[in-house]
């Protein structure tokens, strides 16, 4: 089935008089049969036109249940050994056990506070630097060589160095999370500032703004929705780097749990911890979205 239907329209006459000048010596333009290109409406494949409510409800159900069913068939059906892929019920009962007997909540709190600490520090550093670099070309030229070069150096490669500098305590973990996201934050905030339309800045100038007013009263609020979005994107990165940090040296935390469970081949525990990280991620994403809507209620809906 093709998306486009073609309708044969009046077959072209070889020497169409309408298109050739009388007495013209040039050869007539070769014309093939005319095809009308018409798009058929589609519910499922609609682009930016929204989908009906039933489809909106049905699709996520399919999206979640298909992998769950596949998982169940593989594990309950005995296709895969329990040690490689434990059954869903096993993972859940292990999870309850982790909470009730092994104080998993302490690990969650430890990990979450490391992520939050590193993330907040990265925000405090990247917002002013990003705003300055996006606003002033001189500052951008000054910092760009450093920022763009270091951005391509993998943070994992810095870990040994960080351990030497900061030891293996909490500072090192903050530092890894911080280094992992701060440069991405900066790059994205610079882009957000540069995307502010000229008219907004020119309006501010002709109302009597100096550069300080421009920076704080125009550029910062104008870039705030994008800054909030940057934060939302990069907090996922923060979790990545946290696990990296905890794999190295830690006495608690979700990453620590995962690596220790691996040692004893406790696949169910590994899976449950990964699941928890995913849930925390969804929750933070939701909270940051709410915070964004609270801070910038003026932002056009649908763009968020």
């Amino acid at each position: 089935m093709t998306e486009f239907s073609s309708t044969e329209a009046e077959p072209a006459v070889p020497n169409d008089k309408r298109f050739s000048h009388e007495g013209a010596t040039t050869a007539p333009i070769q014309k093939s049969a005319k095809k009308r290109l018409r798009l058929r409406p589609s519910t499922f494949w609609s682009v930016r036109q929204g989908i009906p409510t039933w489809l909106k409800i049905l699709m996520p159900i399919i999206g979640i249940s298909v992998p769950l069913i596949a998982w169940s068939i593989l594990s309950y059906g005995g296709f895969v050994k329990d040690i490689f892929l434990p059954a869903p019920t096993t993972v859940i009962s292990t999870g309850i056990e982790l909470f009730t007997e092994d104080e998993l909540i302490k690990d969650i709190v430890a990990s979450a506070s490391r992520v939050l600490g590193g993330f907040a520090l990265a925000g405090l550093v990247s917002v002013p630097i990003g705003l300055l670099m996006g606003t002033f070309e001189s500052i951008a030229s000054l910092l760009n060589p450093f920022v763009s070069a270091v951005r391509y150096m993998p943070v994992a490669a810095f870990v040994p160095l960080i351990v030497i500098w900061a030891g293996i305590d909490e500072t090192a973990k903050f530092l890894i999370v911080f280094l992992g996201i701060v440069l991405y934050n900066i790059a994205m905030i610079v882009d957000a500032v540069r995307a502010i339309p000229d008219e907004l800045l020119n309006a501010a100038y002709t109302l009597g703004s100096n550069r300080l007013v421009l920076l704080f009263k125009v550029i910062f609020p104008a870039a705030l929705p994008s800054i909030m979005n940057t934060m939302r994107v990069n907090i996922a990165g923060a979790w990545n780097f946290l696990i990296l940090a905890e794999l190295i040296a830690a006495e608690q935390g979700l990453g620590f749990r995962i690596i220790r469970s691996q040692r004893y081949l406790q696949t169910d525990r590994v899976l449950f911890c990964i699941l928890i990280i995913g849930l925390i991620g969804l929750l933070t994403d939701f909270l940051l979205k709410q915070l964004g809507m609270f801070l910038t209620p003026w932002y056009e809906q649908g763009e968020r």
Partner: protein
Amino acid sequence: MAETLPLPPNSGGPPSMVEHPKLSVHGLSKNFVYQGNPLTVLENVDIELKANEFICLVGSSGCGKSTLLKIIAGLMSPTMGEVRVEGEAVEGPGSDRGMVFQSYSLFPWLTVAKNVEFGLKLQGLPKAERRERIAYYLDVVGLSRFANALPKQLSGGMKQRAAIARALANEPEVMLMDEPFGALDAQTKEQLQQFMQEVWERTHMTILMVTHDVEEAIFLSHRVYIMDSHPGRIRENLHIPLPEHRELDIKITPKFLELKRYITNQLGH
């Protein structure tokens, strides 16, 4: 050809010894380098606006009229020549030259009233005076009921009226308008032309407006500068001999149509 303008109503009083024009542009040129070749966008432009004049600058697209306005606003620097406000040479933007842009330039995070207040706060006006001015100018543009609305809640025409209120409230020496109605539909555009005429009658603001719409230029202005393109030059400084108060139906009077034909012909050269 220099035309004299009948003195606008409230510019009375004894003339001072040296009376400077509100805004003047002398020998202004602007060159760009385009693909390695020098390109003259504006050549030796002279312009003068007396107090309370409403002047339009008409030219076909690409004649450099918007560039000229940006230079006057101080948002761009000229290659040669200078801009004077009340006889004093200016460099860079300032609150003495307010500006209204073609695209919506309201700060989307501020309400209409706060947008209007933006410049007033920068001027350091006390709160009571700010409130008074906001109320007055929102009334002038007919947006009093929308003082607390956000820009995203306004229609295109209302946004432009709010932007005009913001520029007026700052009480600049001269208000610059860069094709302010260019992005609006024909009906809204005519409404806003009538509205602009009323705004001028109430405020007698000195206004320099750039437009490619000949009808708009004749309807609104006391004088029209007709611009040539490539390079952009002032071709003619044309007095518009129409009564000061105008209604939209003046657009179909023979005199208006004659002016329109004349200017359109000049632009076609």
